[in-house]
């Protein structure tokens, strides 16, 4: 009833080709954006910013990046953590060695560009190797990059422990100090990046990726060059992941070591993409929300209800319930949370008179 598009006529091509052709979707997305930008800063506590919203947004961006590669182009990658590390350390070195560039947006973009370059380099084998074999090749990139940042001391500015720290951050003269500043900066960048990603995947570039994903030989026959298509996917994907890595390091951690971007990070983001939904930008957000927030929620839930239990039991319960939930969602909807959302929308269109 509420979600019915009867009476919404598209009389121009522009109207038909909008990102959200349905009025209700437009209103909903606009409302969420307005709430995120205006309402959240009015009531959010530092804890909500630093531990819930900031990690959620940054990892959503990383998941979007990986989703472009895995979900849209069909190239499995286990090197996400490594590419995030490239973004983080490239940004760090620019910030450290060129103090004139005291603008986080420039620093992050540099991190993204360097990650894209490294992504292209490690994407080259994708022309020859496919599927699980490619996954193993990208796994090698993860370990190589881990090793690189742990061993090449120049990259970490010769700190004895390999842990680097940043401070005194600003964007176009705006000092980034409080959690609210960091949140707004991240939110702005993530919204912008999502818009770019959305337009990429629904344009001809995205279609070429999907053609390669669905059947690479057929795509080649109808005129897509596999090397170029795959490498653009690697480049765009790594760019987003690199920016996410730089934001994770600068705005989430503040001080970090290569361990922050180890193989577990790669798996974490791959799981976000799989649970959220392959080939869906909304899925990237849902997956990130699930993987980031659910463990924290499970860990705190008993406390909110006044149930006292030992810390060890609490942690073990968190692992077990979280694991069970992953299994549950994958059984109920193997195509991910985004697919559940789409099904709900289909049902809503007919509600309350389903036929």
């Amino acid at each position, binding site marked *: 009833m509420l979600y019915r598009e009867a009476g919404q006529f598209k009389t121009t091509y522009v109207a038909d080709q909008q990102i959200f052709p349905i009025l209700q979707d437009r209103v909903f997305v606009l409302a969420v954006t307005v709430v995120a930008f205006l309402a959240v800063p009015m009531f959010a506590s*530092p*804890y909500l910013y*630093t*531990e819930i919203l900031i*990690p959620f947004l940054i990892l959503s961006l990383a998941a979007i990046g990986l989703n472009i590669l895995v979900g849209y182009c069909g190239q499995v990658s286990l090197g996400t953590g490594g590419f995030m590390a490239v973004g983080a350390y490239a940004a760090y070195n620019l910030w*450290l060695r060129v103090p004139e560039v005291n603008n986080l947006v420039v620093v992050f973009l540099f991190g993204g560009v360097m990650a894209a370059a490294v992504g292209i380099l490690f994407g080259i084998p994708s022309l020859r190797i496919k599927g699980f074999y490619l996954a193993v090749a990208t796994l090698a990139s993860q370990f190589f990059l881990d090793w690189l940042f*742990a061993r090449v001391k120049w990259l970490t500015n010769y700190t*004895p*422990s*390999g*842990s680097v*720290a940043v*401070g*005194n951050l600003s964007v176009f003269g705006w000092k980034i100090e409080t959690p609210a500043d960091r949140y707004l900066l991240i939110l702005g960048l993530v919204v912008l990046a999502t818009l770019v990603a959305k337009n990429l995947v629904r344009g001809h570039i995205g279609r070429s990726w999907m053609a390669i994903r669905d059947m690479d030989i057929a795509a080649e026959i109808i005129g897509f060059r596999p090397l170029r298509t795959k490498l653009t996917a690697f480049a765009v994907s790594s760019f987003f992941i690199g920016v996410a890595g730089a934001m994770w390091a600068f705005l*989430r*951690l*503040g*001080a*970090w*070591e290569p*361990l*922050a971007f*180890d193989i577990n990070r790669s798996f974490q983001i791959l799981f976000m993409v799989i649970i959220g939904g392959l080939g869906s930008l909304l899925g990237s957000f849902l997956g990130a929300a699930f993987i980031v927030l659910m463990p*924290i929620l499970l*860990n*705190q839930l008993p406390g*909110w*209800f*006044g149930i006292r239990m*030992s*810390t*060890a039991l*609490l*942690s*073990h319960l968190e*692992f077990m319930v979280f694991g069970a939930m992953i299994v549950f969602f994958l059984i109920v909807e193997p195509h991910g949370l985004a697919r559940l959302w789409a099904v709900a929308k289909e049902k809503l269109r007919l509600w309350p008179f389903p036929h």
Partner: protein
Amino acid sequence: MTLRKAVLLGASIAAAGLALASAAQAQNEQFIPGLIYRTGAYAPNGIPFANGVADYYALVNERDGGINGVKILYEECDTGYATDRGVECYERLKNKGPTGAAYVNPLSTGITFALTEKAPIDKIPVISMGYGRSESRDGSVFQWNFPLLGTYWSAADIIMQHIALKEGGLDKLKGKKIVLVYHDSPYGKEPIALLEQRAKMHGFTFTPMPVTHPGVEQKATWLQIRQNRPDYVLLWGWGVMNSTSIKEAAAVGFPRDKMFGVWWSGAEPDVRPAEGGAKGYHSAMLQHGAGQFGVHADLKKFLYDKGKGSAKWDEVGEVLYNRGLVNAMLGVESIRKAQTKFGKKPLTGEQVRWGIENLDLSAARLKELGFEGMLQPLKVTCSDHEGTRAGRVQQWDGAKWVVVSDWYQSDDKVLKPMVDAAAKKYAEEKKLTVRDCSKES
């Protein structure tokens, strides 16, 4: 009323009641957060430590009715030794209680690094007892960090002094081969700077060999050690990595008595899994060792006889349990010191920071607290946030830890210039204003 409604109503009443109850008693409580780990790859070492900390706070509440009447409110949060989870725990707990967290013990060098950036903003001191960044002992730059009892540079220096003594002097180290097997994280990398400096001074070859988290795969490292045949192996491991190293050393036949662990590689869970293979293995001591002292009698009387202890009685007195006690005691005494200036009420992190910086535990006071034989007197000052740099070396005889050395003092002639240089570099990078310690009272 349906069942669901009844459950919801019941839950909300319970929650509201709990909130009221805690608000009523929260007036005179000092909140202390506990970032610990009872799960994950480091749990075998994290659990006894966490038990020691929890028991000491409980003892202070039971025996003395709190710190001068201010009850300790202690809440644990399981970090699993992961930096991001640790920061989440810290953010979750930092504002609890009437005055927020008194101080925080990150119990992980990685978390310490992350919290070092947050401490000056939140005004909550970081006590990293026997770990953390070594240059943070310079209180003029690291106002909020307190690596009490010893840093990794002190630990490495004490081990090198012990080796030199066995060899017959520091000049006898020339030409020796020394390998460091370390956990590939900020923790494991900390001693490298000091060992490189010592290698330069005395002419021994120093080779660092990293082991990746969690450290159960070390075959390649120990194969290299078998080929290189170093004279000594230093071990900077934690959790399962320690016992794995000792087992691998036994497997390649490296003499265990030429193997020296840091104080985080010298507890019962590290050597027991290796069984006979661990016999002869050495480790540095963060002053205290295993065994029961004055405070343990109180623990038995006030907690364990009433069934309130968090560990099993057999485990009370193990190395890491005792370290938990020491850690909690230093925190409690700092709060007590701060109370002399700010009054006998719950204090803020900023007030407790003053207490830690002016902490002065004499031998008599330590005896009173029941820590005689575990600790040497310590005095923290603005320029020295470590308090003391003394340590000993212990050896596993197959059944228990035996102290095999006298007290060493790490050599400040070597350490001080390194600390100053590293702290200066940090201050310049972060554009910090450095305090003038000569003007502090």
